[in-house]
C-alpha cells in the first residue's frame, strides 16, 4: 500500500437482534480522496456510518483512524448466541473499544445526517459556534465568570470566518430551520467543518436537491476537500454526482460488499447493475 489510509474498516458486522444490517465489510479510505458508498436502499450504508461514528457499537470487527485502532468489538453476551456474521472468534479476547460519538468527533471525524439534524432553535451562527465547544479549554466556572473571554472571542472569530467561506454570512442571524432546504444542507456541512475534521462523512448530501443544486454541491464538495485538506467518505444516490466526483466507489448490497473500484469499473460491474435493477428495486 503506497498511499496512507485515513480510515480503515475491518470485518465490520452489525447485527440487530436477528437482522444482519452490515455483514463483514472491510474498506479503506486514503488520505485526500473522495470515496463514495453506494447501494440500494436498506443495503446498510447509514448503519456503516453509524458504526464508524460511534452511534452503534459494531457486533464484530474493528475501525482504524490514521492507523490507530479506535473501535473494536466482538460478539458478547446475548449476541454470542445470536451472531450470524463471519469471523465470530477473530476479535475475541481482544480489548473492546466502544467510544461515544463525541470522542470520535474529537479525533477528527465529522459527519452530516441523512435527515438534516440542525439545532432548530438556534441561529445559523450559533449552530456553527456550538461545534467550537468541543475544543474549549475553559471549565464551567471559568466559562460562567467569563474568564475565558479570549477563547470565546477566538471561537466566535473562527465561526465568523467559516460563515464567510461557506457563503452563509448573509443569513447569519436567521434561525437554522428557516433556511431553504439546500442551504440547510450547506449549513450542516459547515457545522461539521467547524469541528476541524480530517475525515468528513456525508450522508446523502444531495438528497432532495434538484439537478442544478446537485451540480453546485458537486463543485462545493470538491472545493472544500481542497481548501480544508479533507478526506471525504460519502453516501449518495445521485449517480451523476457519485460518478463525477468520486475517486473510488464502494458498493454494498444486503449488508455485504459486492464491488469496489474507480467509477469506470463500477459503472460496468455486472453485480452492481444486477443489485440496482434486480432484486430490491431502488427508488
Amino acid at each position, binding site marked *: 500500500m503506497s498511499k496512507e489510509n485515513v480510515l480503515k474498516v475491518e470485518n465490520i458486522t452489525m447485527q440487530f437482534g436477528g437482522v444482519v444490517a452490515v455483514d463483514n465489510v472491510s474498506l479503506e479510505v486514503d488520505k485526500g480522496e473522495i470515496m463514495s458508498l453506494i447501494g440500494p436502499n436498506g443495503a446498510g450504508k447509514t448503519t456503516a456510518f453509524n458504526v464508524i461514528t460511534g452511534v452503534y457499537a459494531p457486533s464484530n470487527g474493528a475501525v482504524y483512524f490514521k492507523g490507530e485502532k479506535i473501535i473494536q468489538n466482538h460478539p458478547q453476551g446475548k449476541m454470542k448466541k445470536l451472531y450470524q456474521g463471519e469471523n465470530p472468534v477473530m476479535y475475541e479476547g481482544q480489548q473492546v473499544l466502544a467510544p461515544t*460519538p463525541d470522542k470520535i468527533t474529537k479525533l477528527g471525524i465529522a459527519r452530516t445526517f441523512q435527515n438534516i439534524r*440542525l439545532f432548530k432553535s*438556534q441561529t445559523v451562527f450559533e449552530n456553527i459556534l*456550538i461545534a467550537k465547544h468541543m475544543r474549549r479549554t475553559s471549565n464551567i466556572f471559568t466559562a*460562567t465568570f*467569563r474568564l475565558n473571554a479570549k477563547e470565546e472571542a477566538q471561537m466566535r472569530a473562527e465561526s465568523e470566518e467559516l460563515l464567510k467561506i461557506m457563503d452563509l454570512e448573509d443569513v447569519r442571524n436567521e434561525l437554522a430551520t428557516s433556511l431553504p432546504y439546500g442551504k440547510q444542507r450547506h449549513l450542516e456541512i459547515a457545522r461539521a467543518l467547524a469541528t476541524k475534521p480530517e475525515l468528513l462523512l456525508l450522508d446523502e448530501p444531495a438528497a432532495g436537491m434538484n439537478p442544478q443544486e446537485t451540480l453546485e454541491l458537486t463543485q462545493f464538495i470538491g472545493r472544500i476537500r481542497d481548501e480544508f485538506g479533507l478526506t471525504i467518505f460519502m453516501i449518495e444516490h445521485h449517480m451523476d454526482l457519485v460518478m463525477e466526483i468520486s475517486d473510488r466507489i464502494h458498493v454494498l448490497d444486503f449488508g455485504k460488499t459486492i464491488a469496489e473500484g474507480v467509477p469506470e469499473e463500477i459503472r460496468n460491474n455486472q453485480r452492481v447493475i444486477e443489485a440496482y435493477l434486480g432484486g430490491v428495486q431502488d427508488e
Partner: protein
Amino acid sequence: MSTKTKAAWNVGLIAALLGLLFILEQVMPSGSMLFTVLKKGAIYALVAVSMNLLNGFTGLFSLGQAGFMLLGAYTYAILTIPTESRASVYQYFDGGIVQFALPVPVALIAGGIVAAIFAYLIGLPVLRLKSDYLAIATLGFAEIIRAVFQWDKLGPITNGSNLLRNFPSFKSVLYPFIVSGICIALIVMLINSTYGRAFKAIRDDEIAAEAMGINLAHHKRLAFVISSFFAGVSGGLLAMYQTTIQASMFKSAMTYEILLIVVIGGIGSVTGSCISSFLFIACSEWWLRFLDNENLYIGGFHVPFLRPGFRKVVFAVVIMAMVLFYRQGIMGTKEFSIEAFSGFFKKKFGKKKVEEGGGSHE
C-alpha cells in the same frame, strides 16, 4: 443599544427595584400580603429558574425539584439551629448529634452542595433514561429522599418526622431578593456561556450534539448537578421563610407547582419563570383569596359556590387553560429585556429581537 448601556440599564433597574422594595418596607405594614408574595415569589423564582435550566435549556424532563429543595432546607436547618435550642428541637433524640451552628450564608451554600452531591449520585444511573422515564425516576428519587428523612433511625440528625425549628430566618424582603437575584444571575451567565450553548444543543437534538463533540453524559450531569445546587439553595431560603420545616412538606405536588410556574412563564425563558412565579404566588396566596370567602356579596347578590377551596379550583382551571391554549407561556423562549421593552413601546427599535445567547458577548 451597546452592551455597556445595556449593562448600565440592567444595573440601574436592579438598584431601582431594590430601592423600591426598601421604601415599601418602610411605609407599608409588615403584615401585608404583598411581602408574603414578594418573599415567596423570589424563592420560587429561583427554584423555577433552576428547573428551567434542566427542562427548558437542557431538555431533561426532571421532576426531582422538591427532593433537592428538601435536601437544601434540611441541611440549612440542621446546620444553623443554635446549639442552645437543640435540646428542645431534638427533644426525642437527646438534642441530636450535630452540636454546632454555622453562619447562615455558609449553611445556605452547604445546602446547595448537599443537593448537588445527591444529584451527582442520582444522575449517574438515571440520566441515561429518556424523557418520561427520567421524569418518573427523578420523581421517585424525591419520594425516596422524603421517606429517608422521616426515618426514625436518622432522627439524631433529621429529627425524624418532627418539625425542625428555631433556625435563623429573615425579616426583610430584600434578603430573598438579593440571594435569589445573585443565583439567577449566575444561572443566566452560565446559560450565555459556551456551556449554555452546549446545553441548548442537547435540548434541540441529542444525536447532532453528540456528533458535534459534546459529551452527553458529562453535560447532562453538569446541568443536573447545577440545577440541583440552586434548588438546594432555594430550599434553604424556603426554610428561612417558613421558619419551620418538615419532610412531609416537600411532596411531589410541590414539584408540580414549580413545573407549572415554568410552563406558564415559558419553557426556556428565565425572565418568564421569574415573572410567572410572582404571578403564580400572588394568585394562589393573595389575589384570588376573595374566592374563598363564603359571604361575598356584590350589590346585595350572594355569590354562589364561594367557600374555602374554590380559589384553588379557579386557579387550576386557569392553569389548565394556559397549558391547553397558551402553550408558549408568557414569554415563550424569549427574554424580557430593556431593548425589547422599549422597542415594544417606541417601535423605533424595529429591528428583529435577537435571542440572548447570540447577542450577549458582542
